[in-house]
Structures are given as structure tokens and as C-alpha cells.
């Protein structure tokens, strides 16, 4: 195990993040504030409570998940796509490191960045709504697992993508709709029964529901099911990465 190399990749990726720290910091704070103004204040004033919490507070977990999932995916996919695009990947391929160490470096950094942004949004939310987190450890656990699993997904996308359009394709066409339809801004019990059933096929529902449970103690689906869902998703991504490792798919000719 070449730990030094993993750390080198990790730190170099984090440096890139801190080089643009204002950007990385300002945009999530700004967009979260906008969501609060629009959904919390304007629309929320017409909705009293959802599942016993004020609408403004209710959307916090969903908002965090929305940003964390998109950030983790785009950070990780860009992180590995960029060296492929500019050709510096030759260095990774000719160094005494294996594919899993490359994954650890890039995914670790992307997950850290996403976590950082998730925490910023949480702190911003405190300025707008009263929040009490009932299960803080479970909350952190869910958050970290989501950061890691979506960074793994992003990494796979970055390896697969042959151009910048493809890099954007999956986040735009798959992840954003799933997250929006996954109950970020509403409880799925607010939907007609038929749509409730359809929604249960959306994996993101389980993540958001579990995450919301750690805040308010109530959930659309059982917490055990949520845990199983995220475990399965992480396992699927890891399995796919293991397969890439074995076959050299899209990396080594």
C-alpha cells in the first residue's frame, strides 16, 4: 500500500479546492439562502407544518442532500476526468500505485469537499430557521456515507466520460431529477397514493428520508430500509470500481 501516494493525490486535490475557496464557499451559501427565501419564507408561510416541523426546517435535510449529492458527484467526476483530459493521467498510470489507491485519493478528496459544503449549508440554515438535531451522530454518519457513495459514483462517471458533455449528462439527467423528486421539498405522504408507489423506486427517497429522520425523528420510510439502501448503493459503486480495477476499462489501453 502506497499511503504516501494516496495522501499526495488527496492533498493536491484539496489544494485545488482551496485555491477557489471563495467560490466553493460563496455559491452554496448563496443558493441555500435563496432556497430559504423562496421556499421557506414565501411558500413556507402558506404551509404551516409538515410532519410536525415548520416547513422552513423541514426542507433543511433535503437541501443539504441536494447540494452534497451534486457536489460529490461533480467534484469526483471532474477530479479524475481532468487528468484524462489534459493528459497528466500518464503519471498516475506509471507510478507504483494501484487503481484502488487512485480511487482513495480522488474519492477521499471529493467526499471531503462535499462534506465541507454540507456543513456550510447546515450552518447557514441555522441563521434562517430553528433547528434541533435529534440524532447528531446518525446525521453525521448519513452525511459522510452519502458524500463517499456519491463521490464513488462521480468517479465512475469521470472514468466513463469521453467529453465534457458526458461529464454533465448523468448529474443533469439523472441525479438532479431524482433528488428533486426524492422528497427534498415535501413529504412523500403529501403525494397521491399512486405517485407514492412510483416514488419508492427512487433510491434517493431512502437517503433523504433517513437523513431527515436523524434531524426530526420522523421518516417516510423505515430507518433500517434507508440504511440498507445506502449500503447497497455504496456496495454497487464499489463493485463497479472493482471491476474497472480488474479490466482497466477506459484507463489502460
Amino acid at each position, binding site marked *: 500500500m*502506497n*499511503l*504516501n*501516494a494516496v*495522501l*499526495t*493525490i488527496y492533498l*493536491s486535490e484539496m*489544494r*485545488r479546492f482551496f*485555491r477557489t475557496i471563495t467560490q466553493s464557499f460563496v455559491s452554496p451559501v448563496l443558493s441555500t439562502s435563496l432556497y430559504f427565501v423562496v421556499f421557506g419564507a414565501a411558500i413556507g408561510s402558506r404551509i404551516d407544518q409538515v410532519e410536525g416541523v415548520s416547513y422552513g426546517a423541514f426542507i433543511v435535510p433535503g437541501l443539504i442532500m441536494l447540494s452534497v449529492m451534486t457536489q460529490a458527484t461533480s467534484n469526483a467526476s471532474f477530479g479524475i476526468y*481532468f*487528468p484524462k483530459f*489534459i*493528459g*497528466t493521467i*500518464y*503519471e*498516475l*498510470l*506509471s*507510478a*507504483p*500505485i*494501484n487503481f484502488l489507491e487512485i480511487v482513495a485519493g480522488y474519492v477521499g478528496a471529493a467526499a471531503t469537499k462535499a462534506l465541507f459544503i454540507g456543513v456550510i449549508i447546515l450552518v447557514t440554515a441555522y441563521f434562517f430557521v430553528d433547528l434541533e438535531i435529534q440524532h447528531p451522530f446518525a446525521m453525521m454518519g448519513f452525511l459522510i456515507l452519502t458524500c463517499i457513495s456519491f463521490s464513488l459514483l462521480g468517479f465512475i462517471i469521470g472514468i466513463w466520460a469521453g467529453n465534457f458533455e458526458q461529464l454533465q449528462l448523468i448529474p443533469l439527467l439523472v441525479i438532479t431529477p431524482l433528488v428533486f423528486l426524492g422528497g427534498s421539498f415535501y413529504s412523500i405522504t403529501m403525494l397521491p397514493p399512486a405517485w407514492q408507489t412510483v416514488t419508492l423506486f427512487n433510491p434517493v427517497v431512502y437517503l433523504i428520508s433517513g437523513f431527515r429522520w436523524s434531524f426530526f425523528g420522523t421518516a417516510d420510510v423505515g430507518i433500517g430500509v434507508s440504511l440498507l439502501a445506502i449500503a447497497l448503493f455504496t456496495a454497487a459503486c464499489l463493485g463497479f470500481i472493482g471491476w474497472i480495477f480488474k479490466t*482497466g476499462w477506459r484507463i*489502460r*489501453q
Partner: protein
Amino acid sequence: MPPVVSIKNLSKSYAGGFEALKDVNLDIEEGEIIALLGPNGAGKTTLISTICGITVPSSGTITVGGHDTQTAFRAARSLIGLVPQEINLEPFETVFSSVSFSRGLFGKRRDDARIEEVLRQLSLLDKKDNKIMTLSGGMKRRVLIAKALAHEPHVLFLDEPTAGVDVELRKDMWEVVAGLKASGVTIILTTHYIEEAEAIADRIGVINKGEILLVQNKADLMTQMGQKKLRIELADRLDAIPAPLAGYDLERADDGLHLTYSYDTSGERTGITTLLTDLQKAGLQMKDIQTEQSSLEDIFVGLVKETT
């Protein structure tokens, strides 16, 4: 001493089915500089990429320092430094952090003094905090070399290190290469410049269409395959080569004042003595004679032509 790089029956076919290397066998000795010459598309970069782990061999084995590059890739790659043909660098990174990154990837502990030493060796020290995008092409190429040297490799691959580099810088690079050799590094370089191979290599390999046509000691190569030419300047114009001299491989220049005689230095007799006697017998007055040795370029062009 066993060869430091040993390539056995190496073949490489790309995904499309194109066979870029065909049953290549090559041993590279510890401490030598070997130059690989070959036209565009010959397979030089493919050969280097396959040794370094960027592409996977289709068949055959490669060992570096006795370690198989497939099964013991960590040990093998730890010994290797690679300077790629393309200038692949992250434009927003500074010179120093880019070079330091390369060292870290090889699992070596951070060592700023060592990095500065490498940068000094390549006259890049004053640029160490500059972003790479602000450097000239020649400087970028030197950054690539610095990155390859950052982890103190035992074997260095230089894929066209002097492409697009001006004459002065090229001489500087040759000096850097000579210095590395003196410090015990084995160097494999590819080049299109025959005078470069002639100037710095100990051995020369010629590769074309995925096959190694020859690998030979530079001096041997030039004496063995070298044709020498004897140029004879005549005192008086000659309209045609006189009949008694028809048996010699003589060529008359258009001005009628020069004759060129080609002979093989590896032949037992050069035939010069009898030629000179016969020239005199034919009544030709000589003003001057000189010999010319054919360059590596002539040999190279001859070889590659034969296989096309």
C-alpha cells in the same frame, strides 16, 4: 551484470486490432544510453508506454531491475522515471508543487531540498513558484524532466526530449543526460534527430513498423555499415570515365572535375591503391583527394527504406 530492462517476445495490439509492436526482444544494459530511432508511427512511444505501465502488453514479458512489470509492478515502476512525448502538465499548478507531486506519487517522503536540487540542475530554480502556463515550451519540457527525476529513478525514459527545442537548449539537455549517466542512471531515449543519437548514445536501436530492425553499439554500427567515399578532384575536365576504369564503382560529377569512389570499410580490401595506380595509368592528373564517412543518417535511411 544482468540487463536492467529486459523485453522478451513483446507484442502489443491496440483495441482496434492494430499491431503496434511485433515480437520485440531487447535487453538494456545497466548504465548505458540507448537511443531508439524510427519514423513516425514506428512504435517507439508504444514500446515505452508498455514498459512504464501506461499500456498493457498483449503478450510477452518485461522486467525492470529483475521485477516483472505486470506481477511486481510496484517494484518495477519505482525504478522508472518517464518523460512523455507530449507536454502533459497541469497549467494552473506551480512548477514546484507539480514536481513535488510526482515525488509523492512514487511513495517518497516529501523532500523540498531534493526538489530544489533537481530544479537547479535543469535551470528552473528561478521559476519554481511560477504557474506552468507562464513558461515557454522548452521550460515546460524541462519541468517534465524534473518531474521524472523527482523520485530519483534508476532508469529514465525520455520520449523525444528535444522535439521543438532550440539548438542551444538541446546541447544543454545533452549535458543533463550526460550528467545523469555519470550518476549511474540508465537512459532510454527516442529521437528523430540522428545527430542526437550520434552525439549522446552508446547504443542505437532502429525500429520500424513495430519491429526492431537492429540494435548495435554506435561505433560498431558506423564502421560496420559505414560506407566510405573517396572524392577525387581532377586537374582537367573529364567528359567520360575512361574504359580501363569501368570496373570500379566510380561516379563522375556533372562538372567533370570530380570523381567519387565508394567502398566498404568492412571489406578486406578497399581497392584504393589499385584505383590510384589505374587512374595514373589512364593519364588522369589528381589535384586533391579526400575521404568521407557516411553518417548515421545515411545508414538509418537505408535501413528503413529496405523494410518499406
